């Protein structure tokens, strides 16, 4: 059905022209979910009834000629670590299996106000810790391009749902690549905004100095539209920042693009490298300035990221104690307070979450703090300085998003360290707080290759402008 492929702007026009109603549109997407999600497993929860009633309200507004936003009536999905009041929010964990969100996340509030239609909640690695969505306590999501492959992670459900046309767009969260890497592996667009661009209020915390919410979409224009709705200062997140709403007026021909040589060395699949390099040739033919740069601390980014994020996670996840909410062993009379904590957490958390809590607790424990956590924070400064130095020479940086295309389900899950290395090209930007987008730029054996474009802080609009140009080059080939 061609309705499933439309962009946000195209749907908006059809709604205004009364070519289709919001209810009809919502039903088309719900029936798509009903038909194919048993093969994809992108969703943990589908809101069949409330989605229709949300759509009805939009139709009423249209018939009364009230003004509606461009997102009104657009069917979308949310990663299941973002809160919608009155709905379950599990974070992919047994410890929150029966948790009902008591309030709306700020981004949800904004989308509700805009009239977006919430189709359901999507699968993720437990507490967003993972790169394949195999760490979900509930189900394994399959890559719509090849069902035997992972969709990437941790926002794998969101990326798969967008790719399989089960929604127009989805929101995910990115701590070290969790939007960009699944976008790359599924062949969709995914933006990690600058740290502070989007409020984190109502996002279940993993690593608070890194977490950001962002859109997964089918094209660049949709990503920009959604980002413009969810961004901005929120008094409930003190790290959120008021953004300039001016669109970029840069002249693309004057933009300098840097290619960090460290991203084209060992570890990258040669076919992926070739796809990216072919694309770079094309943009050079279009007159763009491309030059090699160096980000010397790239190889230190993985240990730096996993130490810092695990330390923060070990503190953030201490709130799951069986006393306040979530899974609880309080009712077992014979347990004392310590046993209640131990048992609730031992039974409630999965293997990867336990591993990260242990790693973080170890790195913060007496005698190891300086050698691990403090050293990682210092290396974080050096990684940030690498980018500051690079941005003195160039305006944007271009890299592959992932060293390889989608891998097989089961291929890496037994080897924690090899799964960590999957994030090699995305963690540096997270540590530096920079905005970065992944967009599809080709295929290797029918699996997408993602291109990562990194910009300066809060220069999302420059990234969008450049990517719109890239999108034209890619679709014309």
């Amino acid at each position: 059905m061609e309705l499933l492929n439309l962009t946000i702007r195209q749907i908006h026009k059809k709604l205004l022209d009364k070519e289709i109603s919001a209810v009809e549109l919502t039903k088309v997407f719900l029936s798509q979910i009903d038909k194919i999600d048993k093969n994809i497993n992108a969703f943990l929860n589908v809101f069949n009834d409330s989605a229709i009633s949300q759509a009805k309200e939009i139709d009423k507004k249209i018939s009364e000629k009230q003004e509606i936003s461009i997102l009104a009536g657009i069917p979308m999905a949310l990663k299941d670590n973002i809160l919608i009041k009155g709905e379950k929010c599990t974070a992919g964990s047994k410890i929150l299996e029966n948790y009902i969100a008591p309030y709306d996340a700020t981004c949800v509030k904004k989308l509700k106000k805009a009239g977006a239609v919430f189709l359901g909640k999507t699968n993720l690695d437990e507490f967003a810790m993972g790169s394949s969505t195999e760490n979900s306590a509930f189900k394994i999501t399959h890559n719509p391009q090849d069902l035997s492959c992972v969709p990437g992670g941790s926002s794998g459900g969101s990326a798969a749902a967008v790719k399989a046309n089960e929604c127009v767009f989805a929101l995910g969260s990115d701590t070290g690549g969790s939007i960009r890497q699944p976008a790359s592996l599924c062949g969709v667009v995914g933006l990690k905004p600058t740290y502070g661009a989007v409020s984190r209020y109502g996002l279940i915390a993993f690593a608070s100095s890194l977490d950001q919410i962002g859109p997964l979409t089918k094209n660049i224009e949709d990503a920009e539209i959604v980002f413009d709705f969810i961004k901005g200062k929120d008094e409930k997140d003190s790290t959120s920042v008021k953004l300039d709403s001016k669109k970029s007026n840069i002249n693309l021909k004057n933009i300098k693009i840097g290619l960090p040589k460290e991203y084209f060395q060992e570890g990258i699949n040669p076919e992926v490298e070739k796809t990216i390099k072919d694309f770079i040739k094309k943009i050079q033919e279009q007159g763009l300035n491309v030059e090699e740069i160096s980000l010397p601390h790239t190889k230190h980014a993985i240990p730096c990221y996993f130490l810092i994020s695990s330390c923060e996670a070990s503190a953030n996840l201490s709130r799951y104690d069986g006393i306040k909410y979530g899974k609880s062993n309080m009712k077992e009379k014979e347990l004392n307070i310590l046993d209640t904590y131990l048992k609730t957490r031992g039974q409630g958390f999965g293997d990867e979450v336990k591993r990260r809590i242990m790693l973080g607790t170890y790195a913060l424990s007496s005698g190891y703090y300086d050698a691990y956590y403090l050293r990682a924070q210092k290396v974080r400064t050096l990684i940030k300085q690498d980018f500051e130095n690079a941005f003195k020479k160039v305006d944007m940086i271009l890299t592959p998003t992932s060293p390889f295309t989608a891998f097989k389900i089961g291929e890496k899950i037994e080897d924690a360290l090899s799964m960590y290395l999957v994030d090699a090209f995305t963690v540096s930007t997270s540590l530096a707080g920079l905005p970065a987008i992944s967009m599809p730029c080709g295929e290797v054996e029918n699996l997408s290759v993602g291109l990562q474009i990194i910009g300066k802080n809060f220069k999302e609009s420059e990234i969008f402008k450049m990517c719109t140009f890239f999108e034209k080059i890619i679709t014309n080939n």
Partner: protein
Amino acid sequence: MISEKEVQHIAKLARLYLKQKEIQKMGKELSLILDYFNLLKDVNVNNVEANSGSIDIQKNLSIKEVTREDSTIKGDSTKEIMKLIPEKENGFVKVKSIFGK
């Protein structure tokens, strides 16, 4: 190499119950991961300041910009939050007794 005894100590600090099989596996995995993380020991961090994450614009915000006025506002989710508490009495959260008998 992280010993089983160390794993048990860390698990206690982290308030995590681990089965015997999990303890053995965790020790091996953490050792492998931390070995790889020793890469960071090659980096010269003399005179480098630690970075806790915030980007410059956030560091430069004044207290006034990140705090609100100290006035009461009505909470709108008390009822929903109370519903989530596993054991409660008269609007209080019940915990296990903390002092031994």
